[in-house]
């Protein structure tokens, strides 16, 4: 027995050492662009929601380059864990397309290659989405390039607007107007609702709810991500507004426990007058052709508007064995050819100098998304996942309890603020 235990300990120690050694795997070799066109095969990880256009991009790149890229699709829900575990174990990809909110975390842990110098040489560096660039920067160094964009807007069902005697060409521009329109639409029938939200989805609400706070002049996090501002008065106002909508009965019962699936389905079925979603949803609605929809900016309390700048950044990993080819692909992915392919597949490009010509021209409604690209906001934090995307985290809990739980909003805010500050203090 004793020998067994010793052996076990020895193996454990060996495992631990190797894990530790790989943990900080930042190989000393940097990107070498001097020796002509890069060759070899590189691996790229992307999420399942990107499958359609990732394959098209890879094919286009492989046709015109010596280096070849192989795409691996990872389920969206597990991407962060899988990428983290693989990179920690030294089996990560050369290139990764990462949801921009996670960029500060990965950059801070040293698993991404510092591409500050290479990125500075890009002729269109200043034309890339500002919010994406901010999220790619950690301690003044650049760790990724903007890749795909996404923005949140207010979708309205034009038919329901008309039936309720509202002008679909004049969408609501304040909290009060949204509430008023929602009540009128709710009055149309027992199965018609004015508005809906994903009440139990942290990630949905950072995308859909925060713009209301921003448009009213507030924020949920300080610029440097070190201080949570969940107890600010603008957050109180937005929570109160959502609670008023729920109390007025304009939201369906499903909203309280919706983790993000019922919300688009209800709008698509024509049962909801207004919903906040992103550019990705236009694809669904355009293919479906069931709902005549319009899109509008997300308003603040008494006016103004804001949008969440989402999407992906693309990075070379620090553990990559072929950084020259990896960087070549990353650079190409932000170039005109790749960004045009994206736009043709209804993905908002990240180049502010291209977005009008290759994307916005396709559908007049797209203009709003291209505008959002320039002014959209994104919270910056190395603990974004714990703060906002966790469906049971402080953010999701605060919203759910305030809007549906009948608790005191200020108390819920205080609780969330303290919990968030604790998470920020503890760090990743």
């Amino acid at each position, binding site marked *: 027995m004793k020998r*067994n235990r010793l052996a076990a300990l020895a193996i454990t120690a060996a*495992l*631990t050492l190797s894990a530790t050694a790989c943990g900080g795997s930042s190989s000393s070799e940097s990107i070498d662009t001097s020796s002509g066109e890069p060759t070899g095969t590189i691996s790229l990880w992307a999420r399942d929601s990107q499958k359609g256009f990732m394959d098209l991009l890879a094919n286009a790149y492989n046709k015109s380059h010596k280096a070849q890229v192989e795409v691996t699709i990872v389920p969206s829900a597990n991407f962060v864990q899988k990428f983290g575990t693989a990179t920690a174990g030294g089996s990560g990809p050369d290139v990764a397309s990462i949801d921009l909110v996670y960029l500060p975390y990965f950059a801070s842990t040293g698993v991404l290659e510092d591409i500050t110098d290479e990125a500075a040489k890009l002729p269109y560096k200043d034309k890339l989405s500002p919010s994406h660039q901010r999220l790619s920067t950690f301690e003044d160094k650049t760790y990724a390039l903007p890749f795909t964009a996404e923005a949140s807007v207010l979708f309205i069902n034009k038919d329901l607007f008309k039936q309720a005697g509202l002008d679909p060409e004049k969408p609501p521009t304040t909290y009060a107007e949204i509430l008023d329109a929602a009540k009128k639409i709710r009055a149309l029938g027992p199965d018609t609702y004015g508005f809906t939200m994903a009440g139990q989805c942290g990630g949905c609400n950072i995308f859909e709810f925060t713009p209301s706070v921003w448009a009213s002049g507030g924020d949920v996090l300080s610029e440097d991500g070190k201080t949570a501002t969940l107890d600010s008065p603008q957050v109180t106002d937005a929570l109160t507004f959502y609670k008023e909508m729920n109390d007025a009965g304009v939201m369906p019962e499903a909203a309280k426990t919706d983790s993000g699936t019922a919300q688009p389905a209800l709008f698509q079925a024509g049962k909801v007058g207004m919903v906040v979603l992103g550019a990705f949803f236009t694809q669904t609605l355009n293919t479906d052709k069931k709902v005549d929809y319009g899109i509008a900016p997300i308003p603040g309390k008494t006016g103004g508007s804001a949008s969440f700048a989402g999407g992906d950044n693309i990075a070379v990993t620090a553990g990559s064995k072929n950084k020259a080819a990896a960087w070549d692909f990353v650079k190409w992915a932000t170039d005109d050819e790749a960004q045009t392919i994206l736009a043709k597949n209804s993905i908002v490009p990240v180049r502010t100098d291209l977005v009008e010509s290759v994307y916005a021209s396709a559908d007049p409604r797209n203009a709003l998304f291209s505008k959002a690209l320039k002014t959209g906001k994104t919270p910056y934090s190395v603990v974004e996942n714990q703060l906002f995307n966790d469906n*049971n985290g402080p953010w999701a809990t605060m919203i759910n*309890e305030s809007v549906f739980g009948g608790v005191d909003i200020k108390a819920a805010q205080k609780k969330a603020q303290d919990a968030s500050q604790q998470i920020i203090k503890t760090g990743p």
Partner: protein
Amino acid sequence: MAPQTSLTDTATSPGASGHTPALPSRRRRSLTKSRSALGQVVVAPALLLLTVFFFLPVALMLWMSLHKWPLLGKITFIGLGNYTAAFQDQNFLRAAGFTLLYTVIMTPLLLLVGVALALLIRRPGRAARVFQSIYFLPVVVGFAAAGYLWLFMAQPNLGPLLDLLSRAGLASHSDNWFGTVVGALAIVCGMVVWKVAGMQMLLLNSGLQSIPVELEEAARIDGASRSQVFRYIILPLLRPTLALVLVFSVAGSLLAFDQFFIMTSGGPANQTITAVYHIYRVSFLGFQLGYGAALSALLMIVLAIVSAFQMLILRNSDHS
């Protein structure tokens, strides 16, 4: 290391005791020796698997639990820091409390339904076998699949379950049962009973079959009523099986995760987060693998104590 000892024991016991005393003692000893060597060889693969897939991971987990061990980045030794933090972690304590509540509700419920089903199918004939198969069918459905199935069935505005009930005038089809703790817990419990009771039934059925019919007949002849036969004959003889079933269902309930992760996402308002759910959040949303390991170690200890306690009852009830 208990499993190993017991395995070795059973493997060597025939050689040690079951053989002819006529053999000279030296030969007998060498035979015993070679038998015991053979036993060790036979046991080796199982031991190897157990080592690779159980002892090593557990050792690694205990080692990790002594560190601040982020998914990526620097690992630092902090001794028992994670454990002291666990006892001050309100979220973990709340999750542990909810897990206990769930176990307390689930265990008798499953046992009652299991015993009832086992008694129902305890008769000869084809009809009983058909029903036995029907009751057992949900067991072969995966836990996650069953969770999604019930989630869909009970969805407000979409699910057929609510549609049926609203047609029967019992509920409105826009009701959201997941909106209250009681409702959400009831649906999850319903799903788990539907999914697991068949297995309990099968185990209890085999226990029932091992009870000699003569005993029951004798009791009947002595004038015992049906309930008296059940109370004084069947139940005591079924105790070993009952204990086994209890160990299974208690362990399963204490480790509950998928059903809540899928069906309630921990809601409403984080009121249905189980211990394993919390460990998942700590490890894979918070990336604090060391702290997650410490919580897992605590859960393992609780589980070991509960199971050991139940085993004790099992041993005391077995008179042989």
